[in-house]
């Protein structure tokens, strides 16, 4: 009810025309790839040693705690060793270094799966192929499907971050894989229906998808408003089925999966190949030739930037991800990971902060329904009681508050500090 509480969303200038229709480039094969061995704080076991020979699709490592996620080589060549490099979170992280032999020989005998397989088999297949969410978070996909309570499967083809067009291009190129993946996910979820969420402004794509799924009664194409953050699980779910949940979508009987994840599943079922190659949108206002590029997992950002002509400005922000939620990295040695789908290069501008004029725009537009200005003020005043009432832990750091602030204040950063303070208190 935006009369009383604000729309909690806003249309952004996406500038997607920069990469929506132009050529998809292939990044030149690099001498070495550096496969990130990081998934949050999880323990990763490396299964190969120095000088082992690997092919594309050979398992090289696995996450082995409460989730099991295998990690695969993305090029053929020789294992050099493990190196610490800067990761996307700006901390040094282990990377498995493979020296490429240039041949890109594929591993053979990889298991495939047909659509006749049942739900259990599909979920096991997801696990075996190390499928993770390609929307940016990289959550192990099979875990989501281990439930009986799903009524609706939602495929997230919204891609609400500005500049990014990777999902759109992937769907365009791999429609059959997409369809196969969606149908498999539908089976795996045991849901009664599937809704493919896509922005209503994608006027060419929508009829194509409708055509694609016309023989599937249970799968429907559902256009949603072109606003940020429509691609967020909660916002998309509310837009499609009008329900809100506390922690996980399964509480209201839904599973949400990214469209590219579906494509990856479809491709894996056909060829047996896990995720070894990524489509990454390299865009922004400080890159000479914005393009979508294809590259093996583990390619350093420097190669992507070179492929796109290099920087066009002296001072830039190199962002892993989109401009709203992506994190700026200070070295271009950071590498493409399993869940990377964009590198955004923006001109660095000094932004002058004015005093907060208490306009309430941040409150009106927060997708979580929080009150960023009050959280910031309560934190500065050390008013812990008020802070608890304001629930800063529900903030997903989507950046809407900072985006919309007319005084250009770093509102999100203030909430991050409040969250850290509250987390420390909760630990005590």
């Amino acid at each position: 009810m935006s009369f009383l509480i604000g729309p909690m969303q806003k249309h952004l200038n996406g500038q997607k025309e920069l990469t929506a229709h132009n050529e998809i480039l292939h990044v030149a094969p690099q001498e070495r790839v550096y496969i990130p061995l990081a998934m949050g704080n999880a323990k990763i076991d490396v299964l190969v040693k120095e000088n082992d020979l690997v092919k594309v699709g050979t398992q090289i490592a696995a996450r082995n705690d409460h989730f099991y996620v295998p990690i695969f080589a993305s090029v053929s060549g020789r294992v050099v060793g493990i190196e610490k490099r800067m990761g996307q979170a700006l901390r040094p992280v282990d990377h498995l270094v493979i020296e490429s032999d240039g041949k890109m020989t594929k591993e053979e005998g990889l298991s495939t799966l047909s659509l006749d397989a049942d739900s259990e088999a599909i979920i096991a297949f997801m696990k075996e192929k190390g499928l993770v969410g390609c929307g940016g978070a990289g959550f192990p996909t099979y875990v989501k499907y281990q439930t009986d309570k799903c009524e609706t499967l939602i495929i997230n083809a919204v891609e609400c971050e500005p500049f990014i067009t990777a999902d759109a291009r992937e769907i365009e190129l791999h429609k059959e894989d997409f369809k196969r993946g969606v149908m498999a996910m539908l089976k795996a979820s045991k849901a009664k229906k599937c809704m493919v969420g896509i922005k209503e402004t994608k006027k060419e794509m929508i009829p194509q998808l409708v055509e694609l799924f016309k023989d599937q009664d249970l799968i429907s194409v559902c256009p949603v408003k072109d606003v940020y953050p429509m691609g967020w699980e909660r916002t998309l779910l509310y837009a499609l089925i009008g329900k809100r949940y506390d922690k996980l979508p399964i509480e209201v009987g839904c599973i949400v999966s990214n469209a590219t994840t579906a494509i990856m599943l479809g491709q894996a079922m056909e060829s047996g190949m896990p995720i070894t190659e990524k489509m990454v949108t390299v865009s922004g206002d400080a890159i000479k030739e914005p393009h979508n590029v294809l590259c093996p997992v583990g390619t350093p950002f420097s190669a992507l930037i070179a492929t796109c002509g290099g920087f066009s400005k002296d001072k830039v922000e190199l962002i892993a991800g989109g401009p709203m939620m992506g994190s700026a990295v200070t070295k271009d040695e950071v590498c493409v990971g399993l869940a990377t789908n964009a590198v955004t290069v923006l001109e660095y501008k000094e932004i002058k902060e004015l005093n907060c004029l208490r306009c309430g725009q941040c409150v009106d537009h927060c997708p979580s329904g929080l009150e960023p200005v009050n959280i910031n003020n309560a934190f500065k005043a050390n008013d812990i009681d008020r802070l608890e009432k304001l629930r800063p832990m529900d903030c997903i750091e989507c950046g809407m508050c900072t985006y919309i602030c007319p005084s250009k204040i770093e509102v999100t950063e203030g909430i991050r500090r409040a969250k850290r303070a509250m987390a420390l208190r909760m630990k005590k």
Partner: protein
Amino acid sequence: MELKFKTAPHYRQKLSTKRIMWDLTLGLLVVYAFGLYNAYTMGQAYLTNAIVLMVTAVLVALVTESVWALFMKKNVLEYLSTSFGWVTAIILTLMVQVNTEPYALAVATFLCIFFGKLVFGGFGQNIFNPAAVGRAIIFASFAGSVSADLVTTATPTTTINSAGWLLGSDAFNTFLSDFGGITGLFVGNYSGAIGETSALLILLVGIYLVIREVIDWRVPVTYIGVIFVSTLIIGMTNGLGVSYALFSIFTGGVMFGGVFMLTDPVTNPNTRSGRIVFAAIAAFLTVLIRFCANYPEGVLFSILLVNILTPVIDKVFDGKQVLREKKNLAIVTSTLVVACLATTALSATLETSDTYRSINVPTGKTINVADDLSKYAPQLVSQDGNTYVINAKGFGLVDPDGIASASGHTYSRNEFTITVDPETQTITDFEFTTFGDTTGFGDVCLEDIFINQFTGLGLEGSVNCVSGATYTSESALAAAKLALMGGVTYTKGGEAAIGDDWSTYRAEVTDNGDGSYHVTVRGFGLVDPDGIASASGHTYSRNEFDVTIGEDGTVSSVVFAKFGDTTGFGDKCMDQGYLDSFKGKGLADNADLISGATYTAESVVAAVNAALTAASN
């Protein structure tokens, strides 16, 4: 080539605080332009003063903030451009009348910028709307600081405030026509604060500001809406139509306050529901202050009061908004309902005032009720309770310089029907029923613009003559005066029994034989109590009267023949109205004495006594 670090997000929308404030400035200047035009229609000097006021306020604001910036060791230009002091100055100028003295505005601007904004921490930190603070300072300390050369007529709210806010239907229509009707109030060509008169223009600017995302539409719509509904209820329960509600929102700065002042984001709550509640409370306070505190400045003080409530409102709506939808709806709805209906309780205690003196008056000279209007010889024809039918001589019968009789036209007395409220001793109804003067000249006095002045007229009052019809105007006033005096032309000062012993006055009677008696009698001067009269050096003689006694032995008329007492004191007793009070009285009756002329009055009583005694023998 440098890779710089910044925290997410790295994207910003175009709308900035600077753009918001400049859009607001533009809107305000448009309203100011209309104010300048309004001033221009009043005269060149008004236009000049309006410009001087704006320049003064803006300069004082900028200088104050510059000095502050220097004191705080900040870059002056940068501080000025992010502190937006000129906005406060412009709003404040728009809230004062065009004849305000510039020095008063300068002091108020300095004080409100300094104490209303800077000491709190500058832009974004103040609790009260600084322009409202400045306006309150002017109201409290500089109310009389208006330029003597620039005269303005009273504003609608001040005018209706002195008439009691709630007028009866007819009185209200007169009031409206004084200001050009509802349309006139909407367009804004009337006397008021520089920026507050044109409801139409403020509405248009308000729509522009909403589209440009400068203000939240919920605030002005709620504020104006609740005032409209409240005054509609109050009006309708007192026989007034929708024009009363429209008047309430078009005047007194309601539109200006709703669009420019309550929408100030710094001093209003930061949630949408909070802002609706904020505006509803402000509306309720405005109506309350106007009607119960009988104050013309309801809007100003309701803004300041509700600013105090902003932190409380924020606290009430604290929390995760998504979880509060139902709670918010409940709070907002109940606040709106209470704000609108609290006034039904209010309206039960209000009474309509039916007396309204229009501010539109004729252009002739001012004549006072206390003036000597005896030449018009008003007479009481009949009396029914508090309604008097009185006639008086007009131009034709007073006939100065013999012009009237020379014209050959036949004249008669003008007749009036006048109702007086005995408690307040003011006229409640005045009708010019028969016109006996010159058509084409005196009959302009039959028009409402002259007649309306008599409503609410009291003994200390005055009216304006119609230019070119002074005698007829004075004739009407003479009749009004007689009615106010209760139908008697003299101020009674006690009574005396006619049958008492009046030998001190040594009345000497001559019987004319036809029932009338010529009586000479000593007056104040010859009775000379305490020897004052002889000490004065004035020569006194006897008062002489012709008293006619009827067949029934009572007085049928008393006419004075010669006055021998103190002019200016005792000659009140020579008033025919007083002498007529003896009609029908006999020796057993009491007679009125006149206040301040007891001895002369007693001499009349003595004369009447002598005549009655002679007649009975």
